């Protein structure tokens, strides 16, 4: 919301004692945040009021005139291209040095004639989007005076963020009250000429069908309104507050709304087809042609203002085209109503229309304002056109008690704020906020006024008022001593941090991706065909089609990261992400999905760059498997870690496996299907692994146990065999273990060879075996026997031969 300093001055006695900067600071530090403070006068430097004395045609240009212009102290020569003026007209004259948009005015010759400035149009002055000819000022202006000063532009604009609990602050009046609370200044209530003359007439035919939807509806009919231009000062004030001037009546409704906070709507009274106004919920499929020219289909929750035939306005949001104020309007029906906030909010969301009015209704405004606003409208109209009107206001409302007493204990202030504040100070603060109060021995009894009825309900609400006006900076800082608590990470949290650190240490970069993906991507990776990954959660109101569903695995995100980086010419990637995935779980009775934390790793491109001392190497499957094994070793997970073939559709059919630990599935590993990668224009192999981090951490020992360092020496032997290529390493290792007994403490494949020296269809495997007994020194003979047995059995089972 924007308001101006001069406007505020009308409501705060002695505001000039404080600079706009002081006021901005005080408001900000008492809870009304000033987002921006701008001096408008700056834009109008060197622009003055001037009067055209006489003019003649330019000798060298048909469309130009040469004017003698009275600039107060001297007569200036001005060349002008407009032709909407006559002698004695008052104009805005930009002198040498003035800035019009990006252009700086300079004395110059125009087609051979000297010009000492420029007479400006409204558009050039930034006061409207479009204008014809120069601005001719209407009224009593003295040549030579500053233009900005004379037309209400020598002003400061405050851009204010009003918090949703303070609808009372959505007006100049409301901010004026805050200024008075934050300073010692007094509020200046406007005096209405009609203050005591008005009869409130409840007999007019206003019918409110549902008083909860419309707690109050006040109105006044202004007959035979003399229409005239909106005065420039008012236009400019509206302009500074971002409201476009339309015509006097509409401008007045907006002006009053900004000033007192009550939205108003003006109808052409003669276009209402009945003398009865009905405020009711719309019936199904009812529609209205709105002021913006579109026909809106209404639904049953919408409140409408209707005459006996049809809706004439969507309450609180937009008026109807058919009853709009127009050039011919003679009689004005002015509506000043109070509507139920949540209903307005719902409708404005549904229609997609938010206005200054709906914004105020949404936050529940004070129903006492309806009459104030009508009076203010009449007062201003009278001031502008001098017209007097019948003293009748129609008013229909739900009687509610908006008085409330809240007791504020001094002990509560001390308890919450940690300091004692003198009773008198507390009382003064409340007083400045417009809250009448009485000091009692243990508490202050506070009378909450109607305009704060919605947000001051409880003792704590008053504590907050005291705190913010007393000043947060005046509440001393107090060290918090922890007697009762000791900070620590859980084992899970510690392990997770360590995993992250470990992955950083082995040269992986951590990414974070959005939790949502598009359904299209999901299907592209055929996740909908994987039993463990297909049950996704949809977002009811996604941002767009790239954010439709929640991830069930992290695959698509990491592949996308690869693709994005390749498009930035970075092909070599080692990345990981630790994030939650979400899976539908119908067994859960609160219908929340299962959330699982996954570690995903993607490797692609080169692991070694070509260098003077090593050759280039691309990442392969065994780099990924190496990381897997490293993690298990690093976190001391002891047990059987196995890969078992499982053909995931997004993996290469042969390079695709579940990761099992102690016979329980803990993740998946594989090479992304070359065809998918190809479609994505990724011209390199991509390896991917995903581990269920919760299971991983659960299996890792929280308490490590010491095992005695072996006391007896070990014996190592090497065993090289030639074996059918179809036999896997795992099968050979299993066989070796089976025949070795407990003395085999270490088994490592150190060579794999296929090629010329070996029969086709066979391979050579070389293992290093380390034997040790816990209770004695092994004899060579014992090991020889074992190794013989191993070879015999490998031969029997696989036809393996010892390699010579």
């Amino acid at each position, binding site marked *: 919301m924007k308001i101006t300093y001069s406007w505020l001055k009308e409501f705060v006695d002695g505001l000039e004692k404080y600079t706009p900067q002081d006021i901005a600071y005080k408001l900000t*530090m008492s*809870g009304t*945040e000033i987002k921006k403070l701008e001096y408008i006068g700056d834009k109008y430097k060197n622009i003055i009021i001037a009067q055209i004395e006489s003019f003649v045609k330019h000798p060298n240009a048909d469309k130009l005139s040469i004017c003698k212009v009275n600039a107060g102290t001297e007569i200036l020569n001005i060349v002008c291209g407009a032709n909407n003026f006559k002698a004695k007209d008052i104009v805005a004259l930009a002198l040498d040095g003035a800035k019009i948009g990006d252009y700086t005015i300079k004395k110059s010759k125009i087609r051979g004639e000297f010009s000492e400035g420029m007479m400006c149009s409204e558009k050039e002055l930034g006061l409207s989007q479009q204008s014809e000819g120069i601005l001719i000022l209407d009224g009593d202006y003295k040549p030579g005076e500053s233009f900005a000063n004379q037309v209400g532009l020598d002003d400061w604009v405050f851009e204010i963020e009003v*918090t*949703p609990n303070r609808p009372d602050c959505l007006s100049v009046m409301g901010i004026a009250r805050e200024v008075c609370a934050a300073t010692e200044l007094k509020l200046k209530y406007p005096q209405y000429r009609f203050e005591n003359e008005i009869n409130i007439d409840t007999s007019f035919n206003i019918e409110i069908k549902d008083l909860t939807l419309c707690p109050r509806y006040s109105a006044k009919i202004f007959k035979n309104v003399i229409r005239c231009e909106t005065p420039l000062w008012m236009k400019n004030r509206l302009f500074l507050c971002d409201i476009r001037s339309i015509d006097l009546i509409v401008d007045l409704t907006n002006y009053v709304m900004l000033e007192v906070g009550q939205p108003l709507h003006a109808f052409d009274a003669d276009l209402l087809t009945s003398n009865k106004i009905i405020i009711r919920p719309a019936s199904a499929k009812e529609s209205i042609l709105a002021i913006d020219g579109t026909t809106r289909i209404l639904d049953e929750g919408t409140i409408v203002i209707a005459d006996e035939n049809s809706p004439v306005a969507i309450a609180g949001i937009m008026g109807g085209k058919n009853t709009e104020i127009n050039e011919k309007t003679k009689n004005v029906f002015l509506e000043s109503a109070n509507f139920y906030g*949540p209903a307005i909010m719902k409708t404005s969301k549904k229609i997609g229309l938010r206005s200054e009015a709906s914004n105020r209704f949404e936050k*529940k405004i004070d129903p006492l304002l309806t009459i104030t606003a009508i009076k203010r409208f009449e007062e201003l109209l009278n001031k502008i056109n001098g017209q007097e009107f019948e003293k009748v206001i129609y008013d229909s409302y739900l009687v509610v008690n908006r008085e409330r007493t809240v007791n504020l204990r001094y002990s509560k202030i001390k*308890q*919450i*704020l*940690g300091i004692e504040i003198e009773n008198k100070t507390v009382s003064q603060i409340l007083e400045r906020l417009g809250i009448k109060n009485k000091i009692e021995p243990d508490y202050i009894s506070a009378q909450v006024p109607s305009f704060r009825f919605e947000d001051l309900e409880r003792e*704590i*609400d008053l*504590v*907050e008022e005291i*705190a913010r006006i007393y000043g*947060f*900076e005046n*509440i*001393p*800082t*107090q*060290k*918090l001593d*922890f007697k009762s*608590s000791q*900070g620590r*990470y*859980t084992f899970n*949290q510690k392990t997770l941090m360590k995993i*992250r650190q470990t992955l*950083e240490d*082995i*040269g*992986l*970069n*951590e*990414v*974070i*991706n*959005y939790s949502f993906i598009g359904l299209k991507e999901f299907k592209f990776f055929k996740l909908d065909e994987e039993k463990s990954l297909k049950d996704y959660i949809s*977002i*009811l109101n*996604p*941002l767009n089609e790239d*954010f439709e569903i*929640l991830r069930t695995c992290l695959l698509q995100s990491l592949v996308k990261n690869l693709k994005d*980086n390749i498009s*930035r010419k970075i092909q070599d990637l*080692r*990345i990981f992400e630790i994030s939650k995935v*979400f899976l539908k779980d119908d067994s859960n009775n609160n*219908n*929340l*999905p299962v*959330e699982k934390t996954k570690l995903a790793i993607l490797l692609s491109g080169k692991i*070694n*760059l070509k*260098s*003077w001392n090593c050759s280039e190497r691309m990442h392969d499957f065994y780099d990924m498997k190496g990381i897997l094994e490293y993690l298990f070793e690093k976190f001391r997970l002891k047990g059987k870690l196995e890969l078992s073939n499982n053909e995931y559709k997004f993996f290469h059919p042969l390079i695709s496996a579940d990761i099992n630990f102690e016979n329980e599935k803990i993740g998946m590993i594989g090479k992304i299907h070359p065809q998918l990668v190809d479609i994505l224009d990724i011209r390199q192999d991509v390896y991917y692994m995903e581990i269920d981090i919760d299971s991983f951490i659960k299996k890792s020992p929280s308490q490590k146990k010491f095992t005695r360092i072996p006391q007896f020496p070990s014996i190592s032997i090497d065993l090289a065999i030639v074996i059918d290529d179809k036999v896997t390493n795992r099968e050979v290792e299993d066989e070796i273990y089976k025949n070795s007994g407990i003395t085999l403490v270490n088994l490592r494949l150190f060579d794999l060879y296929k090629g010329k020296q070996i029969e086709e269809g066979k391979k050579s495997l070389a293992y290093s075996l380390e034997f040790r007994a816990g209770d004695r020194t092994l004899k060579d003979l014992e090991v020889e026997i074992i190794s013989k047995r191993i070879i015999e059995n490998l031969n029997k089972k696989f036809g393996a031969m010892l390699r010579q």
Partner: protein
Amino acid sequence: MKEKINILKKELGITFEVFTRDQNAVKSSSDLDLLENKYLGKKSLIAQTLKNINDFPQEIKPLVGKTVNEIRRKIEDELKNLRNELNLLEFDKKLREEKFDLTLPGRALLAGSKNILYKVIEEIQEIFIGLGYEIAEGPEVETDYYNFEALNHPPDHPARSLQDTFFIDDRILLRTHTSPVQIRYMEKHKPPVYIIAPGKVYRKDYDVTHTPMFTQIEGLAVDKNINFGNLKWTLETLARSVFGKDRQVRFRPHYFPFTEPSAEVDVSCNICVGKGCRVCSGTGWLEILGAGMVDPNLYKFVNYDQDEINGFAFGMGIERIAMLKYGIDDLRLFFENDIRFLKQF
């Protein structure tokens, strides 16, 4: 007899002096061999004297032997030292004949990186662990109850529209803040409560300054005798630990539905040192977090006795903290995962 000994001693003394002079001239091991031969070789005075020891009278023989051997040992020691020195020199010379290029690049190790957001989270966690807090967690997909209702946002509350929410259905949603963790934790634990809760949150907002997902850290302290002054102390401690000891911290009144009184907290701008610049939009201050005293209504939802205890809560956006701390000027960088960005931290 004494005379004879004295003469011998004198001769030997001169020999040693000459030896000392000679040894300075030794440049190579062949020089050294010559030197050794000259003083210890068969024709040397020492060898000759020992060889002809029988020429001396019986009673002075032992004394002659002792005197000669002393000198011989001295010369031997000197020769040994000299030989070591020479060896070293020659070894060194040989080493110097080799070639070695120190300027060739080293064998590469890959430097990884933890994500900057987790770096900031961990830094903040460390501060609070040190202050006696624990880390609490909660689901990212939440019920309306935990995300709004129990946090004092009844249905139709205008503050709900501040946070545009992603819904799964009319009751289940993506949490819009980490605050539901407060309620979940308090439901399960009696006071005292000292927790922080980091995590991802979601809001339907996507432009230059908003991403539909971002990261928050929430803090909650509930205990006997906790007041606003304690909140100020805690957040000043936090702000100065994260941004530096010299930073000013200020508290501005604000509004949040689940705290009262509520505050927004700013740190002084380090770029303009309070004078006002583009980064701080001319105010000299940078907003970093929201906080306040826990609204007593919350205690009703978790069955705490609101007369017995008090508490404060605070929350901040990690991306914002990271941007201010590291001078990052584009929010979207956090989720673009450009490797050139990731590797900087």
